[in-house]
């Protein structure tokens, strides 16, 4: 097992809990608060092939195991790894020291169902009650407002803290009078009343933003670009939210996923374009922004019978943004010499540790609170010094 030299694991939670960051419990203001920060969480649904995005080209068995899926090109990020050749914006972020890469990472989930895997990723626990981001929001004072890009609030944001959803529309808005009458009508239905109130508030922040202004080409690119543009516009608006969640679908590459070129390469290209839009759209906010990009699990190391990959275990996670102290790989690397159940990359790192670190360092939350309230199933060490 390789341990990347640039990172130091937190020794234990207890040591940190006695530090300065832990002085304030919930309800007491911290030195750094969530309110002056922007956080974006990108969920890649369908299990992105982490070994295609972050290529362990230096591994002796890489070509033998991956065969037709082996990628020749890409951007060298050192220690035997390359970024996929279509990830040009991410490589630029790497060069700007704004990108942290976490290979061989997995949540606490060890089966291979997309749906349960995504639930675990978003709930942060095996028992699905609410989302871990929502539980983290409940620890912040003041609360940054939170939005899921799309029609519904994704599980990761659901819970007792208020969270809204928004996407660009095509139809003209109803009159204020109609809306206020509807709010009256919902007096007997608190759930609808609260939902409508949040929708109205977010719509006001979004101003006249409509589908027409969202642009984009066709295919996956269009959806990804529109989602990124909606997120960037909302986050950058005056009184805009501090937290946005984007869901990008379509990573379940069971058939002919390709290598340097092909289906998965095109999708990675679209993702990269969307990340560029997010960075450019956030503009002046970018230096105070962190973007967490994760997927439910990785894919098999070997190709399956149809030039694709089946559901696996460990994958790659990304932390990006102007607030990130990047340009490095973190965590442990298990190599490809031995595989988990003779098929998957060994899960050597915990995705929850990355989440925990971002919440502690970007939002200033106490690690002891995170252990108790946000990731009770998996307390313990996180990483250190990922956010400046």
């Amino acid at each position: 097992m390789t341990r990347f030299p640039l990172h130091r694991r937190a020794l234990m939670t207890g040591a940190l809990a006695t530090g300065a960051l832990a002085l304030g419990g919930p309800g007491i203001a911290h030195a750094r608060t969530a309110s002056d920060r922007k956080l974006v969480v990108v969920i890649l649904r369908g299990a992105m092939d982490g070994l295609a995005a972050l290529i362990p080209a230096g591994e002796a068995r890489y070509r033998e195991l991956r065969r037709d899926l082996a990628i020749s090109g890409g951007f060298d990020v050192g220690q035997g790894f390359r970024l996929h050749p279509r990830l040009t914006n991410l490589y630029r972020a790497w060069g700007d020291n704004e990108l942290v890469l976490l290979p061989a990472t997995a949540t606490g989930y060890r089966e291979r169902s997309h749906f349960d895997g995504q639930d675990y990723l978003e709930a942060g626990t095996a028992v699905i009650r609410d989302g871990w981001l929502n539980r983290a929001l409940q620890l912040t004072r003041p609360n940054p407002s939170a939005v899921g890009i799309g029609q519904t609030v994704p599980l990761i944001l659901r819970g007792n803290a208020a969270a809204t959803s928004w996407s660009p529309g095509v139809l003209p808005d109803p009159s204020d009078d109609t809306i206020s009458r509807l709010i009256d009508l919902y007096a007997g239905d608190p759930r609808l009343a609260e939902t409508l109130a949040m929708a109205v508030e977010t719509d006001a922040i979004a101003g006249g933003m409509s589908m027409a202004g969202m642009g984009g080409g066709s295919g996956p690119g269009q959806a990804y670009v529109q989602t990124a543009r909606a997120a960037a516009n909302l986050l950058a608006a005056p009184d805009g939210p501090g937290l946005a969640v984007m869901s990008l679908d379509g990573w379940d590459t069971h058939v002919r996923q390709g290598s340097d070129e092909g289906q998965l390469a095109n999708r990675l290209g679209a993702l990269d374009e969307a990340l560029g839009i997010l960075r450019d759209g956030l503009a002046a906010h970018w230096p105070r922004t962190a973007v967490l990009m994760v997927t439910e699990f990785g894919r098999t190391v070997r190709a399956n019978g149809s030039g694709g990959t089946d559901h696996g275990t460990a994958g790659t996670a990304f932390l990006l943004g102007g607030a990130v102290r990047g340009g490095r790989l973190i965590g442990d690397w298990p190599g490809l010499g031995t595989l988990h159940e003779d098929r998957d990359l060994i899960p050597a790192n915990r995705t929850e540790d990355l989440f925990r670190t971002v919440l502690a360092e970007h939002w200033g939350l106490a690690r002891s609170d995170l252990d108790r309230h946000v990731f009770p199933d998996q307390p313990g060490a996180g990483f250190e010094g990922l956010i400046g």
Partner: protein
Amino acid sequence: MSRLDTAIALTRFGVGARPGEMDRIGSAGRDWLREQIGQVETPQGRDLRTSREAILYFREEYQPRLAALQDGTTEDPERARTELGRLLRSGSAAAILARTQLALTTEAGFVERWVRFWSNHFSVSMTSPPMALLAPTLEMEAIRPHAFGRFEDLLLAAELHPAMLFYLDNASSVGPTSRAGRRRGRGLNENLARETLELHTLGVDGGYSQDDIVALARLLTGWTIGNERLRHRSNQIGRTVFDERIHEPGAQTLLGERISGAAEDKAPTALRQLARHPSTAQFVATKLARHFIADHPDAADIAHIAQAFIDSDGDLAQVANAVITAPGAFQPDPQKFKTPEEYLVSTVRALNLPRLQMRALRASLAALGQVPFRAPSPAGWPDTEAEWGGPDALMKRLDFANELARRVGASARPRERAPEILGPRLEGATALAIARSESAEQGLTLLLMSPEFLRR
């Protein structure tokens, strides 16, 4: 038996009332539901294709044009690309229009809901060019014919339908030690096996392992789509075929039972075994109760449906009867938030609007967030208020209702319309808000956005 039962039957189990329907049924709502069981209608329309026609159309019309475009031998590439998009949309457009039109006009709304439930249970989605043409055909060819038959027959028809074989990649799964596997170095694709166990039969906690997934994947090898390149006979082209050359030979152990015998019989035997597994009854009953009765259904409702499933050996007519006779089936408070498609259909029925234009229909479904045959994953569309009732979703419904009211105009007469379509479900607060609205358009918007119209 009461008029409230009828109002509930029309909305919770049906596709919404049209004006006059409530009066016609009177207080016989429960009988009205029961009499529909077994009576499946077939959507009608121009340009509807079978799965075989869809596959041939894809190979003969789409692929050559795409190849020409990629070779650079097309004269006007821009126009060719538009034409390709049109070819793909033509497949789904006719099917979406036909099935929506049936839902808008049917007098047996429970049947259409029942068909949609199973179509969603065995969800296939327009995720690639061939699927854009193929996805709409499974409901017509596998779901409707077996909707009130036996679950195991429905299961076989759905898993071995060309759309499913293609969508979940079984068409390209090859037994590693089969003749073709050894010669070409191809291998298994687990996708269909995994989703069959997880989503279609036992459910994720139903008691199977990764070994069972691999065993089922091996049993399913050989089931593919007839193709000239693979030298299938001409009458097999574009149809489901069993090709022993790619089938993994030998017996397999699935859930502790050994499955052997003729190569072609093994997958059907395995699927029938899964259909009879107790976890399947429990899983299906839970999904049915969640869809028809409540997001968090009572254990008693699930047990009632599961028992009917087990006692009748998966006779879906009896299971349907169990759904409408479950203890919580007619509880007066609505526990469900309509899906976008249910919302759109019930809206158009309530207003008795004339035939829809495809463009308007598709745009509305897209704006509301649910284009048929485009579910986001093999798990199909979600089925709870948490998934459908987000702030933006509610705002999109309001935009839609407002626009519809604007177009219908003063002819809407919402004050008279409200009791006609909601019956005893109409709340005093809603009636009052409509009566006090500043215009017929606004009154109609309030009616279509009232809690009792949004819920069922």
